[in-house]
């Protein structure tokens, strides 16, 4: 009987358990979690602030998930991995493993701003605790400054906008969601947020903080009551790095989610897997990838054989009812369709769909996604049909009949 | 009211029969008595008997029993008879005057032999020839009716209760190896002597209890072959069917039973192949001669009896034995009346023919 140890309590950890249990029903699973609570969905904290969900609903799996899967929870911080003796040290305990999965996720990255230590009310926006902190420190008059106009910063703004006096979002980049959208699409989204009362300072950066005031490089001064730092995240790689494992921005893994250390796997935001859309390694800090990686690691840890090599960036972003779904890479020839309410961009490269951006009407987006994933070769007619709307017409009658008439 | 022949008359009935397998002679006394306990199965509108082996002195001649409404018909009828037959003997059938039986017609008996020369010129089988003449008299001579036409046998029938009819015809003075009897319960006839049962053609006689639902299908089919169903009674059509199948098609009694009370297709399917093919052949070949609806019949013929119920057994009929004798009747009481010690009493299944033959050479 194998001993499985998983470090981390996020989505990759939960899917790792599901992966292991698909193969091995009896081996012992130890789960080391620093946060001290069962897996919840971190992306939901903004919806929590908004009042759409609560902590109870935010649980990723039912309460009985861990007991049903015969997992022993160890709350505490994993301090050291001994890859030779195959142990993990947690406080004064040393846990032996046969297979280890590192799913330590990422931590907020806090740049070394001048005078940041003088700011009293400040937080990152990543955990339930962060959300609770914010909730405690706001009133209808609160002025909020959010550093970072990425997904985390903007979701935070969306969650708070109706509950506070004002929100200013700043970013060094000249557009919002700079890593996901181009200028045109970004300004489209920005407009929606502005209509709801969010202010933006873009292409600018805080030069210094002084208590409740932020001074920007441009000289602009912003007063605030609460500072939220959403600049970015860094993968938590130190445990593996210290144990001698190969790392880059994330922990390097192969398509079986194995690290360079024997019997040690990594999955989720801490791992640097393979991005199929750019044919290169990359940390894919998105939930679908976390799940897939954790599950793949679990299967392989339990003795199964599963490869994961069709991951690529997928983002579902929505603010105030306007949704943007994006996937893959924005390279190659672009097909664009634009109206007041909708943007559709499809990126074709080498007769394949490699990426898309849909804003507004997002129905059927998954059909595009699957074409990227399967690297489906597209004829001109198929492209035409795709441009019109995403539909299974693209598959042709035979494949479609099999898919709709058979077991998938 | 319309009488038999003008309208179809359904009726309920009592039937009874006895036969000696050894060919021992019995007077008509027992068979008359057997009808007494079944009195309620008749309503006084018809009764009759058939006796086999009763004319040993004329066993080579056809015995024609004929009702005449009046003496003028006799001449017309005899002209036809004389054209075709040599009349060996002619007499009035002796009867006993009793108050229960009234309005009797003139009842005559002729022992006849077909004219050989005529038979040859017509290229006809003797029996077929007799049948044609009987049909001719019955359809062409109004007021004359041949009600018995076999050799060494005779039918005796009248309007009245059967036990009275038996006494009227003095059947206690006849001796035969086999007897059948019938008591009738017709529902809408004024009562006509010719309409009483048994019905006979050549040596075939039928006593029948039932009302067949296949009547018109059977009638319209059998009439294609020269039979004329002048009485519109079940007994008449069943007699013709028996004659057609046995005499003209040459079927055995068992095969005949498989036609008129054919097994259900589901039963046929489950039979062994040879039997199955045979039954399927018979049912397909003679599908219009299947008889449905309730019946229990006793077919009398030269040297034997066959009793048969419809395939659902919708009418009562029991069989019993004692020594050389076999008894068949609508009710066990009738059998007990004939032989108090009768054994092996049982009710045959629907469609199961009971065939009793007198040992070869004993009749």
């Amino acid at each position, binding site marked *: 009987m194998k001993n499985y140890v998983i470090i981390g309590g996020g989505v990759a950890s939960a899917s790792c358990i599901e992966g292991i249990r698909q193969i091995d029903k009896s081996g012992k699973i130890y789960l080391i979690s620093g946060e001290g609570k069962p897996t919840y969905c971190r*992306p*939901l904290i903004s*919806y929590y602030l908004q009042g759409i*969900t609560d902590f109870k*609903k935010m649980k990723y799996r039912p309460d009985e998930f861990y007991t049903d899967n015969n997992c022993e929870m160890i709350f505490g911080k994993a301090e050291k991995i001994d890859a030779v003796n195959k142990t993990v040290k947690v406080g004064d305990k040393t846990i032996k493993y046969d297979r280890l999965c590192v799913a330590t996720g990422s931590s907020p990255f806090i740049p070394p701003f001048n005078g940041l230590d003088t700011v009293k009310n400040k937080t990152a926006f990543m955990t339930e605790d962060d959300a609770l902190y914010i909730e405690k420190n706001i009133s209808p008059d609160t002025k909020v400054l959010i550093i970072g106009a990425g997904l985390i910063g903007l979701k935070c703004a969306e969650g708070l906008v109706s509950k506070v006096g004002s929100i200013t979002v700043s970013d060094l980049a000249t557009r919002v969601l700079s890593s996901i959208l181009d200028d045109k699409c970004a300004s489209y989204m920005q407009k929606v947020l502005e209509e709801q009362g969010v202010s933006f300072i873009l292409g600018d950066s805080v030069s210094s903080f002084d208590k409740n005031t932020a001074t920007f490089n441009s000289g602009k001064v912003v007063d605030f009551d609460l500072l939220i730092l959403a600049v970015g995240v860094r993968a938590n790689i130190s445990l593996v790095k210290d144990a001698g494992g190969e790392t880059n921005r994330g922990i390097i893994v192969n398509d079986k989610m194995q690290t360079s250390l024997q019997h040690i796997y990594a999955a989720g935001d801490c791992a640097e897997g393979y991005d199929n859309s750019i044919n290169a390694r990359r940390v894919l800090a998105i939930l679908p990838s976390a799940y897939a990686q954790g599950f793949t690691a679990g299967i392989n840890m339990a003795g199964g054989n599963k490869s994961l090599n069709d991951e690529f960036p997928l983002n579902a972003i929505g603010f105030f009812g306007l949704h943007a779904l994006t996937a893959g890479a924005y390279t190659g020839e672009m097909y664009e369709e634009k109206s007041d309410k909708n943007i559709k961009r499809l990126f074709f490269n080498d007769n394949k769909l490699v990426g898309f951006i849909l804003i507004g009407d997002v129905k059927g987006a*998954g059909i595009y996604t699957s074409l990227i994933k399967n690297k489906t070769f597209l004829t001109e007619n198929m492209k035409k049909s795709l441009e019109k709307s995403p539909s299974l017409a693209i598959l042709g009658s035979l494949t*479609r009949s099999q*898919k*709709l008439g*058979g077991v998938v | 009211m319309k009488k038999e022949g003008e309208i179809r008359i359904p009726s309920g009935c009592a039937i009874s029969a006895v036969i000696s397998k050894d060919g021992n002679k019995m007077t008509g006394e027992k068979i008359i008595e057997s009808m007494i306990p079944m009195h309620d199965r008749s309503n006084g509108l018809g009764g009759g008997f058939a006796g086999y082996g009763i004319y040993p002195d004329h066993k080579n001649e056809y015995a024609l029993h004929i009702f005449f409404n009046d003496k003028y018909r006799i001449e017309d009828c005899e002209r036809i008879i004389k054209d075709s037959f040599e009349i060996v003997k002619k007499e009035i059938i002796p009867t006993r005057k009793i108050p229960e039986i009234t309005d009797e017609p003139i009842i005559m008996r002729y022992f006849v032999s077909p004219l050989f020369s005529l038979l040859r010129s017509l290229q006809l089988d003797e029996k077929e020839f007799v049948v044609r003449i009987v049909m001719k008299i019955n359809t062409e001579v109004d007021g004359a009716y041949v009600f018995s036409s076999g050799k060494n046998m005779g039918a005796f029938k009248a309007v009245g209760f059967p036990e009275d009819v038996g006494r009227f015809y003095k059947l206690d003075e006849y001796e035969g190896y086999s007897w059948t009897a019938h008591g009738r319960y017709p529902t809408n006839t004024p009562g006509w002597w010719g309409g009483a049962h048994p019905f006979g053609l050549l040596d075939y006689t039928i006593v029948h209890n039932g009302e067949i639902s296949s009547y018109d299908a059977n009638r319209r089919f059998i009439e294609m072959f020269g039979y004329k169903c002048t009485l519109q009674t079940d007994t008449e059509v069943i007699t013709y069917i028996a004659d057609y199948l046995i005499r003209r098609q040459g079927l055995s009694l068992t095969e005949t039973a498989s036609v008129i009370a054919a097994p259900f297709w589901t039963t046929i399917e489950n039979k062994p192949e040879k039997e199955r093919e045979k039954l399927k052949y018979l049912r397909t070949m003679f599908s219009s001669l299947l008889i449905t609806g309730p019946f229990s019949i006793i077919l009398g013929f030269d040297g034997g009896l066959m009793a048969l119920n419809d395939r659902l057994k919708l009418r009562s009929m029991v069989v019993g034995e004692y020594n050389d004798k076999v008894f068949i009747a609508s009710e066990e009481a009738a059998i007990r009346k004939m032989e108090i010690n009768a054994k092996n009493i049982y009710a045959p299944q629907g469609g199961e023919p009971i065939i009793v033959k007198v040992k070869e050479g004993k009749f």
Partner: protein
Amino acid sequence: MKKIYVNEKWCLGCHLCEYNCAFANSGETDMVKALKDKEISPRIHVEEDGKITYAVSCRHCEDPVCVKSCISGALSKKDGVVTIDKNKCVGCFTCVLVCPYGAVIPTDKHAAIKCELCLKNACGYPACVKGCPNKAIVYEER
């Protein structure tokens, strides 16, 4: 397990399935009241490929990528049926982004919807199947 299967050979493109679906999931007992003058949001939709038409709804995949991608745990698969807990769903539409059939439908009510085989509504038996005039949609074991 019984599932909904589509035989495009018999699909007439009448779109009745969409209306029957919308009605079944409306909570109303009268179709006119449920659908008149309303934009419908059915969980099944009819697509066209030239002259061929066919209905598409959730395949309840063996390995449902929507469930795996759901950020809130609202999507789950129980007894072979992929269902969505509308209380847990926050409407991020990651499921819409990943479903290769386009069978998870975004709505403007902070939630995605999808075919749940009418097991949760009053119909109790897939309304699209019941109402299909030509057996192009069937509910059976395969």
